[in-house]
């Protein structure tokens, strides 16, 4: 009788540990969080001439979606529908060198495999532009859990963190809508950088 009880106990323990293991594995991308810690960039606000700081958690996104009733808002509404957070920090500086590579590295260090995978990385040695796009996918590799964009230019630094299942194609198509023109349509604008400055990766 004792031996049978022991077997049952061992079986229960084994089941418990297997369940714990499965639970851990099924957690979003092995426990890493799709929300990045970008608080270290707040110190750059003092040096920047222009700052865009957007912090929208799930509740604010829900609140915003209630007020997005215009025809122009329909596509944006479709994108944020299932999102859990949108966080943007964008800084424009007067001169190059106002932010350090360490500021960017602090963000980049959070975007490690296997949770995060870099899907786009473009670097221009000539004008110092650097653009990276990272995606966090579920452990099964199916759904997107989060996205991060880091755009570092000599006088501009932008970090975008989207938490939740984001449709990249829809997001990409959003430019030129919502009353905002595409960058390519602003060819005569003084802010537009010359094409010749693009360089090899």
């Amino acid at each position, binding site marked *: 009788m004792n031996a049978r009880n022991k077997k049952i106990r061992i079986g229960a323990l084994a089941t418990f540990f297997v369940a714990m293991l499965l639970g851990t594995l099924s957690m979003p991308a092995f426990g890493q969080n799709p929300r990045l810690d970008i608080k270290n960039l707040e110190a750059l606000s003092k040096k920047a001439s222009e700052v865009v700081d957007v912090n929208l958690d799930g509740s604010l996104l829900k*609140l*915003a979606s209630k007020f997005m009733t215009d025809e122009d*808002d329909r596509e944006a509404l479709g994108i944020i529908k299932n999102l859990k957070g949108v966080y943007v920090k964008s800084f424009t500086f007067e001169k190059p060198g106002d932010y350090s590579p360490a500021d960017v590295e602090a963000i980049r260090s959070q975007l490690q495999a296997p949770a995060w995978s870099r899907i*786009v990385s473009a670097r221009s040695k000539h004008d110092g532009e650097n*653009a990276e796009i990272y995606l966090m996918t579920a452990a099964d590799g199916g759904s997107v859990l989060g996205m991060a964009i880091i755009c570092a230019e000599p006088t501009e630094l932008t970090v*975008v963190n989207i938490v939740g299942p984001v449709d990249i194609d829809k997001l990409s198509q*959003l430019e030129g809508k919502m009353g905002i023109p595409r960058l390519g349509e602003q060819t005569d604008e003084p802010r537009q950088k010359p*094409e010749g400055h*693009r360089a*090899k990766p």
Partner: protein
Amino acid sequence: MNPWEESLREALRRKDVPPGFTNRVLARIRELPVREKRPWFRFRAFIARPALRWAAAVLCLAIAGSVAYREQQQRQRQQGELARMQVKQALHIASVKLNAARKMVREVNRGTAQSRL
């Protein structure tokens, strides 16, 4: 004791109330004109009623609640509009940067960047 003191003592001596004094005083009071008939006293009597006091209290609470609700609605509307603008701004930046990165990659793939160097 001089006569003056004697007369004072006599004047201050306690006397019993004559029979029927109380009834006569009450009768005189009843004959006086009723002050409560004036409008102010009538109004005071009206608002002194407990039911009316309760009704006033309920009305005050309803008005205060309504004002607070409207203020809260207005605050929520302002927060919602602000959040809406922030969503649009954030998505715009994300979209622009996403496309800029894609454009850089496309240029690199075409080899234009390398040839320009």
